[in-house]
């Protein structure tokens, strides 16, 4: 098992030391042939004969190199890398073709993505609220700041002068830490106006929605929490 692992790692490493190993193998094969020629000369062959005989006995240096590569490395991966390098060179050589191909792909992918985002949002995954197509978000653009928040007095004015929408609600991030059962916990919360839940068409499982009387400055703080939080943190106490 360890032998197998060791061999696999060595083969992977050989992939990245290809030239170095090939170079060393060349030197080794040259030494081999030199030794063979020398022995043949000592046996009384002519220098040409000695060389020829040595080469024949060796049996093809190219073949030996191929066998060496197959034995030491991952031939499939090696040829894949070679193909990739070749493809990359070809792309670089014909740069205008590459540019057109890349542009075509980019436009195609871009158009598809844009179209799918719309279809996904509108047709496949609409907001999980009744009449979701009639709910919009409003922001106020400011210099150097698009989609900014709306001040509370502005909200009050908009709500009063509104003739375009059935209702307008405001919300604002109000994350905080709460205690209760177990460790204190950081929770995501929103401050919302009384019409917030009616607009979304969401009703309380237990208790009631915010009343208009609670939707003013100085009113008693009131909280609507998720079922999960109620169970986890307050042990379902009503």
């Amino acid at each position, binding site marked *: 098992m360890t032998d197998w692992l060791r061999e696999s790692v060595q083969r992977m490493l050989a992939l990245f030391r290809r030239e170095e190993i090939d170079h060393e193998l060349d030197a080794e094969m040259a*030494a*081999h042939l030199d030794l063979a020629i020398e022995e043949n000369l000592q046996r009384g062959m002519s220098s040409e004969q000695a060389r020829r005989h040595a080469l024949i006995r060796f049996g093809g240096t190219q073949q030996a190199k191929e066998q060496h590569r197959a034995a*030491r490395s991952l031939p499939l991966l090696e040829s894949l890398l070679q193909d990739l390098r070749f493809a990359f060179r070809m792309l670089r050589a014909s740069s205008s073709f590459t540019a057109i191909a890349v542009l075509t792909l980019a436009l195609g992918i871009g158009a598809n993505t844009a179209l799918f985002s719309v279809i996904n949002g509108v047709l496949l995954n609409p907001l999980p609220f009744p009449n979701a197509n009639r709910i919009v978000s409003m922001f106020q653009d400011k210099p150097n700041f698009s989609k900014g928040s709306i001040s509370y007095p502005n909200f009050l004015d908009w709500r009063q002068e509104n003739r375009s929408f059935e209702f307008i609600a405001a919300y604002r991030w109000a994350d905080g830490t709460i205690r209760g059962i177990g460790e204190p916990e950081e929770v995501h919360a929103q401050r919302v106006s009384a019409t917030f839940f009616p607009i979304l068409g969401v009703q309380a499982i237990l208790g009631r929605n915010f009343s208009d009387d609670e939707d003013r400055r100085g009113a008693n703080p009131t909280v609507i929490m998720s079922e999960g939080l109620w169970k986890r943190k307050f042990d379902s106490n009503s």
Partner: protein
Amino acid sequence: MPESKLDLLQGTLDLMVLQTLVSMGPQHGYGIARRIEQVSGDKVLLNQGTIYASLVRLQQRGWISAAWGTSENNRKAKFYSITKRGRKQLSQDAAYWQRLSAVIGRVLALRVESGDE
């Protein structure tokens, strides 16, 4: 017609290389190839170049190690020597081959007896 030379079975060359290194001590590729040719009485079909695939395989498995050195007639050559793990492997493989060839021998003998009818 002269008998054709024996093709090497998968794995046999590795075994021969290990055994050669045990009997001769550190040796370069040419020396190993020549030794195998001599011992086999030139009955084995061995392109000397194939020895290098075997050597790199054995090296990767950690059964032999290699270092550049100088040959007896003062040439630079890469010398291979067997490692401790290589010796262990050799004794396992040798036992395996002996068992296998004994079995093959018995099976073949069987065939001759019953094939005479």
